[in-house]
């Protein structure tokens, strides 16, 4: 199972601590989390399920960027960090 961490700024809508989720891409993993924590979804994705511009995604210590971010492959042992990008401050 993928380990997902959310920025502490989302603690009022995100699950506390690490969440485990299933999926082979970042999109599928996040949708698995959102299915259990629906209030979190609009904080990370926009109306069209695109990643919000100022959300930063780190997968196994790599900063994943660009239009294909959501389709990036993840491994069952991956660790995913969903953070607020400094560009949005």
């Amino acid at each position: 199972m993928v380990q997902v961490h959310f920025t502490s700024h989302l603690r009022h809508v995100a699950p506390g601590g690490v969440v485990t989720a299933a999926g082979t891409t970042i999109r599928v993993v996040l949708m698995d989390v959102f299915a259990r924590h629906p209030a979190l979804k609009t904080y990370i994705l926009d109306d069209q399920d695109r990643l919000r511009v100022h959300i930063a995604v780190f997968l196994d210590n790599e900063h994943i960027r660009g239009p294909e971010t959501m389709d990036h492959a993840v491994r069952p042992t991956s660790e995913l960090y969903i953070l607020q990008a400094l560009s949005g401050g």
Partner: protein
Amino acid sequence: MSNSLLISTRKGLMIYRRTPKGWKHKSTHFLGSPVSVALADAKGKTIIVALNLGHFGVKLHRSVDAGATWTELAPPQYPKVEGGEKDDKAPALKGIWALEWAGPDKPGALWCGTTPGGLFYSSNLGTTWALNDGLWTMPERQKWFGGGTEHPALHSICVDPRNSNRVAIAVSCGGARVTTDGGKTWNVGSHGMRAAFMPPDKQFDPDIQDAHMMVQCPAKPDVYWTQHHNGIFRSVDNLKSWHEITAPVSSFGFAVAVHPKDPNTAWFVPAKKDEDRYPVDGNVIVTRTKDGGKTFKVLKRGLPQGNAFDLVYRHGLAIDKTGKRLAMGSTTGSLWTTDNGGDAWKLVSSHLPPIYAVRFA
């Protein structure tokens, strides 16, 4: 007079109360979060607040106990389009620019104006929202473009006091539109507006006008005033036509307020046009007409003169139901009120966060 003020700022919603000793801060909500606009009912119990979080998008909250507790609501959402998750042009909510009650005969119903130009309706105090298809699918909407923002912003919603199915909206940059059937169809309402900055053949195109803010006189609803990028405009024939008005100091600005009973009386907060956007000569002034725009008086008593950079945004000027009490909030965090129609202003605070909107509750 109204004794409660909602101040929407870059760092939260501030509620001020009028006391025998003047306006006093009562409470702060959503501290640290940008609040684009807020709306309260007549009793000040129900409050709807729109946030625009830099990272996490537009959020909506509601209180039914005057701000003691809040419930997060699902914000208005643009319909998904096929392949939208990979289409940069597919619409998504960028900001909430207007919240208005839909009329006394529609309790709990709200209109919401947004960037990128969609109008939403809720019949249940904001719990659920529906995009107004009539306006969104109107072919002329393709001519709209952003003004001050990347995308068109629907910032003004005037619900006609004679008939709540008659609603006028204004857009930067998309002119004005009016519906008489509750939003099913929309007719042009900006003939006569002029955009001098456009190519000659486009200057009077009603669909590209940069109306900064439009208000309707509650007692004489045939009369509307607009502060436009190009200047000041007035309609006295229920939006069939507009005529341009020139005010002293500068006709450029964002905010406009109309007297609730007297359609000839309106207030403006001029600024140096148009890329500079600060008070002309550093003097904060308000211009007021009492004769429908034939003449204006420059009001400055109580306002800073010299080296002031306060800009008042389109929702930064509010008037109460008496027409005597106004409030004004600026980009540099100054808040003023007047109880005599602007003859003299009193500073409430000069160190609030940048103010986006003020409203009497």
